């Protein structure tokens, strides 16, 4: 098997890994780099548990060949160093139940602007499946992070 050197910035530090160019980014992150916070839930870009940021934009790392992040900046959940306010809010608001979708959910939420509406949050997280919460607690965590009021219910009446 051919291994290429792939050089990219991972959580702020330059990494130079040897990997088959077709290797999936998620496998390189989890196995080569030892960063297991990025989770695999489906392998089809549908559940979003493997979401990482590539040059600041959320992508599903289970369907990105590692060759495509050469020269890019990759940020995983570990890159937040446990210091991001969203991380604590996900626990406090019970936006994380089983927790398997949580890293991907947080990474996707990071792309939200400063004063999102509930619809903005919904749209930004539509690529992340959660089976535990029904999403409401996730909205509470994200809206609190952004200092936005939390509606009791989102439906029209």
């Amino acid at each position, binding site marked *: *098997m051919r291994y290429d050197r792939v050089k990219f910035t991972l959580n702020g530090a330059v990494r130079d890994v040897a990997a088959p160019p077709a290797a999936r980014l998620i*496998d390189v992150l989890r196995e080569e780099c030892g960063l297991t916070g990025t989770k695999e839930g489906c392998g089809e*870009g549908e559940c979003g548990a493997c979401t990482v940021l590539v040059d600041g934009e959320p*992508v599903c790392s289970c*369907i990105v060949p590692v060759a*495509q992040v050469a020269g890019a900046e990759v940020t995983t959940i570990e890159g937040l160093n446990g210091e991001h306010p969203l991380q604590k809010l996900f626990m406090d608001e019970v936006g994380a139940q089983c927790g398997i979708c949580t890293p991907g959910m947080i990474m*996707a939420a990071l792309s939200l602007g400063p004063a999102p509406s509930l619809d903005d949050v919904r749209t930004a997280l539509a*690529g992340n499946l959660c089976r535990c919460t029904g999403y409401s607690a996730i909205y509470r965590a994200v809206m609190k992070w952004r200092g936005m009021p939390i509606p009791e219910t989102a439906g029209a009446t």
Partner: protein
Amino acid sequence: MRTAVSELDLRSTASLDDALRILRDERRTPLAGATDLYVGLNFGTLPQRAFLDIWAVDELRGVAERGDALVLGALATYTSLIRSPLVQRRLPMLVEAARQVGGVQIQNRGTIGGNIANGSPAGDSLPVFAAADAVIVLRSADSERRIPITEYYTGYRATVMRPDELIVAIEVPPVEGRQWFRKVGTRAAQAISKIVVAGVRSAKPSVAYGSVAPTVVRVPRTEEALAAGAGIDAAVSVLETEIKPIDDIRSTAEYRLRVATNLLRRFWAETA
């Protein structure tokens, strides 16, 4: 079972000329955002083993006006289409379609060229291009040709593209008339289309459907009926004979036909 990565041969390039040379000399499947091909890899259903990664070919990324045409680079992502003021102004139905593709993660990687090349009859952008009389620009190392999208597909996921060619752009002529788009998916987001419609209301109306045939289709006889002022009921009767959808794991022929006709009525009512 996932395809073993060791069985795959992926070569990357950042240059269009290189890409075209490689495609001339080697049999490789172009790979852009990988949002379709890598799903096949994960499911072990991918027939190909050799790929040409063109994600870094930045010259295929732009959106511009050339003459009176709107030219979309093949590597334009759904996100870039959604954000493009030019596309918002000239082809709002494409923005609408792009917003309904996958989630944000897929919109960030999926490309318009990839949607066309993949050729799924359920591809969300395809009815938009078909209704807008878009032209696909195919280039090879020594030639370039322009194929109207309505002539591009020859069957289920089969196209006129040669292995040495690459989709480099989509040219959309000026769209006269009110644009309309509706996707009926399997759920509210991250859905595969069970039926998808794009229409343009003008003196010569155009209507295109996805997920009702092996390829995206225009419905010329229905369009004629609409253009002739035969009334929507008559046009619906024509449509019922013009498309023959099928049952699959996502929906039924009966539902698709009924919704296709309902949506023709809605298109006509909402663009009146």
